[in-house]
């Protein structure tokens, strides 16, 4: 294996542990917002999409790049906005609590 691949594998393994542990105490009531929030985070694929789109130089890559950027941007923007809408409600409740 190349060193790069080994490092990537290490990042992967450590991130698995972090991913598991960090949400392990989530209360039921936050399942839906958390799902929505993680959904927004995988919108990071937008980084990959613009890396592809930026260098597009053939009809195929142009189509692929354009579609990929649209889809990924929708994922990011929609994901964070809809999560925020959900959580706004919780904030309302917190305020009501005080």
């Amino acid at each position, binding site marked *: 294996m190349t060193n790069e691949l080994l490092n990537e594998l290490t*990042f*992967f393994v450590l991130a698995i542990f972090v991913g598991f542990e960090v949400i392990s105490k989530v209360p039921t009531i*936050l399942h839906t917002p958390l*799902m929505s929030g993680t959904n*927004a985070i995988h919108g990071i694929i937008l980084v990959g999409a613009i890396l592809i789109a930026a260098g597009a130089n053939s009809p195929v890559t142009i189509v692929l790049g354009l579609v990929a*950027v649209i889809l990924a941007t929708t994922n990011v923007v929609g994901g964070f906005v809809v999560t925020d809408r959900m959580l706004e409600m919780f904030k309302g409740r917190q305020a009501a609590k005080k």
Partner: protein
Amino acid sequence: MNTIIALAYLLAAALFILGLKQLSSPKGARNGNFTAAAGMVIALGATVPLLHFTKAGLEITAVGLVIGTLIGTVGARMVRMTAIPQMVALFNGVGGGAAALVAVAELLKFGVHPPLAEVFPSVFSIVIGSVSFAGSMVAFAKLQELMTGTPITYPGQQIVNLLLAATIVGFAVAVLAVASIPFSFIALMVLALVLGVAFVLPIGGADMPVVISLLNACTGLAVAASGFTLNNFALIVAGTLVGASGSLLTKLMSDAMGRSLGNVLFGAFGQVRAGVTAVGSGGQARSVRSASAEDLGTLLAYSQRVIIVPGYGLAVAQAQHAARELADVLEKRGVEVEYAIHPVAGRMPGHMNVLLAEANVPYEQLKEMDQVNDDFKNADVALIVGANDVVNPAARTTPGSPIYGMPILNADQAKNVIFMKRSMRPGFAGIENELMYGPNTVMFFGDAKDSLTKLVSAVKAA
């Protein structure tokens, strides 16, 4: 420069982790979303120096960003609270699609014999991303009622699906080993799309949240795989975080429903059929009591303690505001009102909390199952609004019932039970509810919102 990019990516990863951490505690959840969004902005910003735009590339990137932002914002802003599950499905699906497309585009760059270290993660990303895309779209269609929410089954279905999956694996191995046909991954993609559809079709609409969560985790892994192909740290870490936390979340969600994940994904057929049969055979012979809004208004107005049990029907009828109004008029008369929230009431965990919060129900009135279950016996009225399975005593009393053993709200222990729904039809689990025939139970038929509004007037008049 590379150092700065790497440090920015690391910062972005740290922000994603902190965001997730905050998202999983009620206090910090909203900040958590902002934290994660900040991480996203930093990761995107750090990517800019890596880009070498062609003319067409610059245009499509800009156009794509604008279009995507529009769709995302409008979609997320317009959607009604009850339609959030399908919106999440949609946003998840497009992410999976993007991951698959990125992997395809990257593979096309390497002529006929791409190195294995590139092909393997790409193929993974294409397959999983496509399954996630297609599966999410079916989930969306089911939840949006563009298609029937009941499981679509036919004889030998599981065998067909298995064959499909086997074909994909075989094909993928061929691509990995031979990799001589450049467009073979397109075929792989098409097959994976079909598998995605076939996988979700036999799962009932009510189980969609768990399916979406699973597909969400899959998309995360597909993104991580794309990261291996592109040698991009941000994709690897963020994708893996979502993959891992999403898997755990999927498990937590099916746990909260009192079912195993396997049962959710593959057990739909048998269970639902049995349920339907049970309903066909039993019931309907016996009679139930029902009452007028006026009678019930009086009963409520002169109670000391009322516990409202909201369920899926309240969500469908958008009756959360009407429920709040009823609680308000009751409280003005000195009646103590609480809401008993079953963890799986509605169609996704936390559904009721979100809806009632939308209607500004004070936090202290929302009681979790464990907190409230002992209070029912001291309650004068349990007011069940569009809930059914979550108060079905069969879970306690009838071994063999599909919901036997599931923890339920002890609404049947209240002095009076008002059961509001439109008909005698069963709830999600498709099984009858003895509580409707209970000696203290009064049915109040009709759409939840209408019925609640009637009760508000009746209480005011009482």
